[in-house]
């Protein structure tokens, strides 16, 4: 039977090394390109990379990388659910921000005490994210509106709606920062002292993120629902012929994607800032798209991608010490995504051709005695 690793790596039969080779090649390639850019700009690439690496290995930075990575990872999962059935939920960004605003408003009002408040906030976020995404799903099913267009539009609406909610309903002014009323202390999610050598705690939502990743894998690979979802993604026409209710699947998948998206803001809301204000992290939904591509929708791959992305983001400021623009990191992120996509596509094609050749060789080689088809 197959090993666990085999399956995680997408059952690459031609030696698992191909699956590992692709991302490694891609990262090496990205480093090379970035070096060229640095050289052109008249900077020393080796020095820049050592600075990044030094910073990334300090305990405090490691915690920061983990904490940002948790949000990136949840965002990537939300995007990946859609990707697996060829549904492009560009609206993860709007879904998580609107969910965070409403959840923060509810949490700040402290209608229920303690742990119940945490549950209320999380459930509210999930429901809001799911409903917001459902709009795009229903539009696609009943009106044939491409979910790409509708989710982009809904992002803009979510931004407007969020600002209105904060300024007109939930907002309190502290200093010159307009934000929701802070969630009371008894409803804070505690951090975990995971990394030694620093007082900074790892966000408690890391547990939720890991559980979500595991659930994502189990649901997609081991359940009938996941099978139908993947089948629809691979061939909608075959799915229809096999009796998969494609319309229902579109709505359900959008709702799932939106529900996960609702959780993206929770580590920040319940574990760091405790309120939604102008400083609340924005654009995580788009980061999630990049990471889902980087991790090829695989739960482990996306975890690695989220950490890599988070490392680059967190350490970029250090480059300014060397008088290097921190935007160089964005170039690197872009190149990593592009090269990963290209590398995987090449490997994928190579594998298809190689497999076809292997099958025909294996069938041709042992010249089996011609089977006498029991002809009547």
């Amino acid at each position, binding site marked *: 039977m197959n090993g666990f690793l085999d399956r995680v790596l997408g059952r690459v039969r031609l030696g698992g090394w191909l699956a590992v080779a692709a991302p490694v090649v891609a990262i090496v390639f990205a480093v090379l390109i970035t070096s060229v850019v640095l050289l052109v700009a008249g900077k020393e690439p080796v020095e820049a990379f050592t600075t990044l690496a030094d910073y990334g290995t300090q305990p405090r930075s490691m915690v920061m990388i983990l904490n940002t990575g948790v949000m990136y990872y949840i965002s990537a999962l939300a995007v990946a659910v859609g990707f697996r059935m060829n549904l492009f939920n560009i609206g993860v960004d709007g879904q998580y921000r609107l969910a965070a605003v409403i959840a923060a408003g509810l949490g700040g009002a402290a209608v229920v005490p303690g742990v119940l408040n945490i549950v209320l906030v999380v459930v509210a976020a999930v429901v809001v994210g799911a409903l917001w995404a459902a709009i795009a799903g229903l539009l696609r099913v009943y009106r044939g509106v491409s979910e790409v267009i509708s989710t982009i539009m809904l992002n803009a609406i979510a931004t407007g709606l969020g600002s209105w909610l904060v300024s007109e309903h939930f907002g309190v002014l502290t200093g010159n920062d307009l934000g929701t009323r802070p969630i009371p202390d008894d409803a804070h999610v505690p951090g975990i002292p995971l990394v030694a050598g620093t007082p900074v705690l790892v966000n408690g939502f890391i547990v939720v993120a890991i559980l979500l990743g595991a659930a994502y894998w189990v649901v997609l690979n081991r359940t009938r629902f996941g099978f139908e979802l993947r089948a629809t993604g691979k061939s909608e026409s075959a799915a229809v012929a096999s*009796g998969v209710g494609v319309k229902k699947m579109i709505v359900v998948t959008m709702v799932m994607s939106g529900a996960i998206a609702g959780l993206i803001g929770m580590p920040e809301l319940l574990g760091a800032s405790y309120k939604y204000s102008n400083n609340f992290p924005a654009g995580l939904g788009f980061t999630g798209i990049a990471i889902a591509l980087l991790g090829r929708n695989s739960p482990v791959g996306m975890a690695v991608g989220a950490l890599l992305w988070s490392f680059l983001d967190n350490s970029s400021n250090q480059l300014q010490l060397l008088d290097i623009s921190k935007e160089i990191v964005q170039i690197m992120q872009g190149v990593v995504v592009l090269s990963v996509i290209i590398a995987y596509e090449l490997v994928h094609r190579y594998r298809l051709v190689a497999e076809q050749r292997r099958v025909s060789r294996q069938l041709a080689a042992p010249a089996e005695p011609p089977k006498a088809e029991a002809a009547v």
Partner: protein
Amino acid sequence: MKILYGMQRPDEGEIRVDGSPVGFHTPADAISAGIGMVHQHFMLADNLTVLENVVLGSEPRRGGVALDFAAARRKIKDISDAYGLGVRPDVPVEELGVGDRQRVEILKVLYRGARILILDEPTAVLVPHEVDELFDNLRGLVREGLTILFISHKLDEVLRVADAITVIRRGTTVATVDPKDVTSRKLAELMVGSALPSPETRESTVTDVVALSVRDLTVRTGDGRPVVENVSFDIRKGEVLGIAGVEGNGQAELVEAIMGMRPCEVAALTLGGADISQWPTLRRRAGGIGYIPEDRHRHGLLLESPLWENRILGHQTRRPNVRGPWIDRAGARADTRRIVEDYDVRTPGIDVDAAALSGGNQQKLIVGREMSGDPVLLIASHPTRGVDIGAQAAIWDHLRTARAAGLAVLLISADLDELIGLSDTLKVILRGRIVADVDPANVTPEQLGSAMTGAGEGV
């Protein structure tokens, strides 16, 4: 064939045209070497005229930008007259019949200066008298010094039209023979590599129990035009009901309506006595309808998934593939191995992607899958299209065995021999209506062919 036309590169060996070796990277290279290909599926734009279709992509220029239609018309007329194709350049393609369209395809290739023509299964879409016309055209072309490579599964046609026959089996040349020295039986044996199968099923196994009953089924297009109109029939257990018709006369829509993939109006649709007209596709499948789709790549398989996942497709609610909401990997894999074994699917294992198998082996896997779980009714759309003769014989065998065991089969095919040979009852469909009932025991392919085109009423 794809290699000859520059769509694929050979691993080894060489191609010579007029004695000099050539290497093709793209179809354009092949065209400039004088090789032209007439595809099985026509590549014509319906709303353009014949003239426009022919020049599309190699338009004659006048003064850099303007199109020189006059010159093109003259050239088309010349080619058409020289080879006796009888093509009218100013008719829109949508008004042409299948045979005319094919001549336009041939003309398109000649227009580009081809001296060697590859015809891929050119007769698959033609009825017998159109085939005769095509052969007359081909003989005309040959008389003018052109070379024709005629690829076909149909032996009698090859025997009639070819000057030399090369038999290919599983990618290797088996024999090159002179058509004067072989009988079609001998040729078939070369192709199969063993004794000749035939689709014949004469001893009737038809029972009195109706498996599927259809009354007044109508399918309309988006704009309300009926593509299937008031079709009614019963299929009893142990009966094969064949539907004969030129492709595009509503067969595909009829099948999709019965499968619940397409909305339709129907007075009654019952499977084993139960009204299934409101059931969704999955319930109809679970209720005992097996489905061999017309286009296995679009409807029958997940090409980039392993065989065992393809075993689950369409059967994702039933054992041994699932247990409750969970996929039963062990069960599905074991049953895939059974299908591979019983249906002689030639594959190195069940973890290879479906795309890696040949068409015949993919089809055998589908047949095996759809026969699983004791179906009541099997809808077989072109079950042996594009598969080699060995697989064809095997599939026919499986259909016969299942029929003897009481399976009801709705057979839709363009292969008239297959229809006549396998069916217990034959109905002819034309423009969405059942226009004739034919007794397969005493009808010839020619009679059936003219009924399909509406030429001969009341066969």
